[in-house]
């Protein structure tokens, strides 16, 4: 009864969200796209980093791979083919990176993923300057903002569906065990490498597709835009603020922070960086469990008292 109810409620919510482009004005639609973009990215991030507790700063590496693939292939083939190729490139990179790095311990993995996005950016820049002799590229595809929004919505539905299915599967349990104690995980028969790499690749696949879908938003793209490290950190902070131990947690970080960033950027463009930094520190110090964890703890305390 209850799962059926949740399913119906989710379907209605998605249906309502799907109507947004029909009545939203340009600004509202643009905001909705940003919200949807970060929802996909932060949830995909949580898919891997939530249960395993590996903090990844490679989000923008995959996002950028997606966006750049579109920029390169834009007018050469049909849109679904472009998405498929972007997906293949993203997953291939994720598999290589995952297989070689997921045995690193916590802090080294963070730094590696940070370096990874920069490395890819440098290589793309060098390639564009020296081989193709075009640093920037123009993207002309017949995809309007409403299409982008619907595609992102579709991706968001897929991310959540994947998250729910994993959570109920053996893989989900394996990842929770790994997050708790990797040594124990290995000694009860879990192939920790395969579990981690599989999820890292899945998470990267969503990020890559998200970047590909978002690419037509910019008519001009260059490596500095596509691989901007700020995106990785924004995704991280949104996921942390919302809470990473629940699949829906990041939503509670994405909505307030996207709106906050939007507001700060409009009102205090010159102090944006300072305010974002302060917001980041506030979250780390005040709500390390994220909003969802915070609320759950209060509810639990209420429950104990009653």
């Amino acid at each position, binding site marked *: 009864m209850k799962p059926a109810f949740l399913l119906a409620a989710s379907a209605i919510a998605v249906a309502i969200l799907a109507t947004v482009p029909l009545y939203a004005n340009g600004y509202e639609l643009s905001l909705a796209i940003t919200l949807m973009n970060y929802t996909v990215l932060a949830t995909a991030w949580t898919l891997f980093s939530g249960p395993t*507790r590996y*903090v990844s700063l490679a989000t923008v590496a995959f996002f950028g791979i997606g966006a750049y693939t579109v920029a390169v292939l834009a007018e050469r083939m049909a849109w679904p083919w472009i998405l498929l190729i972007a997906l293949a490139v993203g997953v291939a990179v994720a598999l290589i990176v995952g297989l*070689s*790095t997921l045995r*690193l*311990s*916590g*802090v*080294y993995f*963070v*730094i*590696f993923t*940070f*370096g*990874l996005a*920069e*490395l890819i950016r*440098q*290589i793309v*820049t*060098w390639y564009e*300057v*020296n081989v193709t002799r075009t640093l920037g590229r123009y993207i002309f595809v017949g995809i309007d903002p409403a299409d982008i929004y619907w595609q992102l919505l579709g991706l968001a539905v897929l991310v959540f569906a994947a998250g729910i299915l994993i959570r109920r599967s053996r893989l989900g349990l394996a990842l929770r065990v790994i997050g708790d104690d990797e040594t124990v995980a290995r000694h009860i028969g879990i192939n920790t490498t395969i579990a981690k790499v599989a999820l890292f690749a899945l998470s990267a696949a969503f990020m890559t597709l998200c970047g590909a879908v978002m690419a037509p938003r910019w008519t001009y793209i260059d490596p500095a835009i596509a691989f901007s*490290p700020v995106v990785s*950190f924004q995704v*991280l902070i949104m996921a*942390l603020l919302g809470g990473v131990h629940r699949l829906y947690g990041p939503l509670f970080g994405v909505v307030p922070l996207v709106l906050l960033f939007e507001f700060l950027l409009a009102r205090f463009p*010159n*102090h*944006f*960086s*300072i*305010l*974002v*930094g*302060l*917001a*980041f*520190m506030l979250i*780390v*110090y005040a709500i*390390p469990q994220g909003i969802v964890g915070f609320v759950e703890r209060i509810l639990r305390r209420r429950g104990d008292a009653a």
Partner: protein
Amino acid sequence: MFVAAVTSGLVLGGMYALIAMGLTLQYGVARIMNLAHGELMIAAAFAALWLFSSAAVNPLLGLLLVVPAAFAISWAIYRLLLTPLVRRAPNRDALEVDSILATFGMLFVIQGVMLVMFGGAYYSYSFLAFPVTIAGATVAANRLLALAFAAVIGLGLYLYLTRTRLGTAVRAVAVDPNSAPLVAIDVRATAALAFAFGGALVAAGGVLVSMFLTFNANIGVVFTMKALIVVIMGGVGNLLGCLLAGLILGLAETFVATFVDPGLTLATTYALFLIILLVRPQGLFGTASR
């Protein structure tokens, strides 16, 4: 051309070694992975620029002002902002992740303040910029001076750590923070001291770098990344490893820039870093313990 590349590689490498020594003290002793390290360095560079251009203070004298100030600020940051994280962290991994997140916030704040004050433009000033000839290659005097100062500061730190009581306490905490209290070492105070020393070192690096490199408010991250690379290459907490790894990185970058393609220097840095992480995560000169 070769000699010129070697000299400028050594100068650059000396700077990397200096700022990496600061980071390795902070990470090796205080267990803080400080992502705002490069921002403090650039702040020091701006301080030197400001002293030089508006108060006509020679940057070498500026060191005497900037370095103690950075020491005090870093000590205060550790005591006020990082100690709460140390207290709440259940284990070392948790502290590392928390410190990355917190110092990342600081990175944005410091960078934002500098952007407000100086904008995104590149700055430099001319101090002792006359050429000197060594072994047929010409080098600017300020570069040689910077290298000499870096060497003196690095050597001073090394002697301090190996020859004094407080220095020994610092090394004891780096080796085993759990046993250090058993021989009456105050771990928190020592960690704060090490963190402050790290800040002082990177500030010294910033002042020295400002004498011969152009810099802007956004460039700190690049130096943080390079310092991280040097620290990991040299083995966490290993000062001599830092020195060698710093010189290797400086030479590698200069050689790639001179003989291959200047556009590939950063890519070289990162590639070197990724390879080291994968092949020898304990560092070139570290011993396997993790």
